[in-house]
């Protein structure tokens, strides 16, 4: 179970990173196209890959402790109070994210039912990129639930990973 979940976050994070690379790739194609005189419009594809990066990367980012929160007050909490506040935020976030996932599912269903197309040259059916959003949010909901059960079981959750963006590279560089 633990291994399966960690694999899920790693794979979705990897897909997100691949999408980020694809943003750059489609834009290079656009620039090259302009240079050689044929039209490639990456305004839409770039945007869709960006959405893919954002949503597929959510769970991985949460687990790596990168999503920001104000811990000025709660970091002072000790013992049961700290435990309860951790339970409360995980519960709230899991519920909220589950609700957003459900709403997204009905949005994707509508896009599919009405055959909505993207407005640009690509005219992609909207439900395709929106499904990536749905998948990413579903994984994020799982990740929040995972964090909740970790806290309940008195394990340390992923979002509490000590984290300082600026110092990452220093440790790795040396």
């Amino acid at each position, binding site marked *: 179970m633990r291994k399966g979940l960690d694999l899920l976050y790693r794979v979705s994070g990897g897909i*997100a990173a691949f999408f980020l690379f694809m943003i750059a790739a489609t834009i290079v194609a656009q620039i090259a196209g302009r240079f050689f005189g044929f039209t490639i419009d990456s*305004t839409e594809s770039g945007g869709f890959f960006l959405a893919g990066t954002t949503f597929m990367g959510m769970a991985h980012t949460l687990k790596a402790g990168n999503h920001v929160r104000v811990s000025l007050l709660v970091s002072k909490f000790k013992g049961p109070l700290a435990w309860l506040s951790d339970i409360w935020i995980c519960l709230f976030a899991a519920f909220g994210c589950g609700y957003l996932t459900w709403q997204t599912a009905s949005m994707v269903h509508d896009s599919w039912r009405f055959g909505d197309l993207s407005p640009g040259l690509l005219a992609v059916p909207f439900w395709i990129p929106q499904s990536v*959003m749905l998948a990413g949010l579903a994984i994020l909901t799982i990740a929040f639930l995972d964090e909740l059960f970790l806290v309940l079981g008195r394990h340390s959750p992923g979002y509490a990973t000590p984290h300082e963006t600026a110092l990452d590279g220093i440790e790795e560089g040396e």
Partner: protein
Amino acid sequence: MDILITTGVLGLALIVLLGGGLWISVTLMAVGYLAIDVFSPAPAGSLLATTVWDHSWGWALTALPLFVWMGEILFRSRLSEDMFSGLAPWVDRLPGSLLHVNIVGCGVMAAVAGSSSVTCATVGRMSLPELQRRGYNETMAIGTLAGSGTLGLLIPPSIMMIVYGISAQQSISRLFIAGIVPGLLIMALFMGYVMIWSAFNRGAVPPADEPLPLMEKLRRSRRLIPILMLIAGVIGSIYGGYATPTEAATLGVFGALGLAWVTGALSWQSFTQSLMAAMRTSCMITAIILGAAFLSVGMAFLGIPAALAAWVSGLGLSPGMLLVLLTLIYMVLGCFLEGASMIVLTTSVALPMVVGAGFDPIWFGIYLILVVEMAQLTPPVGFNLFVLHGMSGRDMWTVTKASLPFFGLLVVGVALCAMFPGIVTYLPNLMLAR
């Protein structure tokens, strides 16, 4: 219900959730949901999904992950060492000597990294031990670094400007260009201060090394020059109108990959590491932007920004007083929020006010970024202070005291920009006029 009471209720919900340690992006969405579901007849659930989706694939936003990635690639090359050895021969003869390496190095790094704590950490990693070894005054070494680190937000390409441009629906190209002159101004203020300080404290600065011939200077900075050219190319292509910020960022990414490849710093491992790190940072910022987008929709439904703007203009404050008031509010916010959250959270409310008072939205963006820079230097949550506290091993109080003069200089910079708005608006207007 009175709209100010509604605003108060929403503000209270925001403070309680944020203070309770809930993730900022989740908090923003929750408060937005509360606004629509309780105080308006609109269907909050379907609006939530469609708003989040609509804002997640905007073209302008694609520049953000790419610039973050470019910084991550260069950050993993030997930039930090190159910065010190490459800059030292050029500034050695100035009064204040190698202290200027901190300032100029941060200025260069700022263009690469676009985030102030990264700027601070990258330059300081090499220069703090070097300056200490040569016997420089430690307070000044820490202070210059803390102050100049904040340039990361101002000198383009800056992540904060993309965040502001998205939230305020302003041209990111124009914001980038608008940041150039104020960025140089702040650098000049810092360097001027170091020169004057060293004139009064002659003993505190070790004598300069023997002057080097020009070719030797060039040889020592040979690895720095390609980076400068890459930055000039990225900014120049935006200024000249040859590329959108996103295209310029893509060129920057491939340029950075090329440089890393030539210097031998590029491996499959460093490539994937930089990509994953960029993905995480971009995810974090985008999540806040999406949360704020939904909150803005909620507040716009209730007419809160317009009502607050009308209320403020009813107070009869002069534009100057409004700015002073806003600056104080941002200083308080800066005590517990980091930069991106401050910008997205306040833009939709503050922008109608300041535009109503006759300020230019581009000018306000630069002002906002300067104020956020100042917030990086205020305890208890000044990120640059944290970074330097960690790197120098000195306590927070010493670091704060060392950076105090530079905080003062930032205030001077903001005041100058307020008195002479042309400092900000001249270049972008010139760009538009062509």
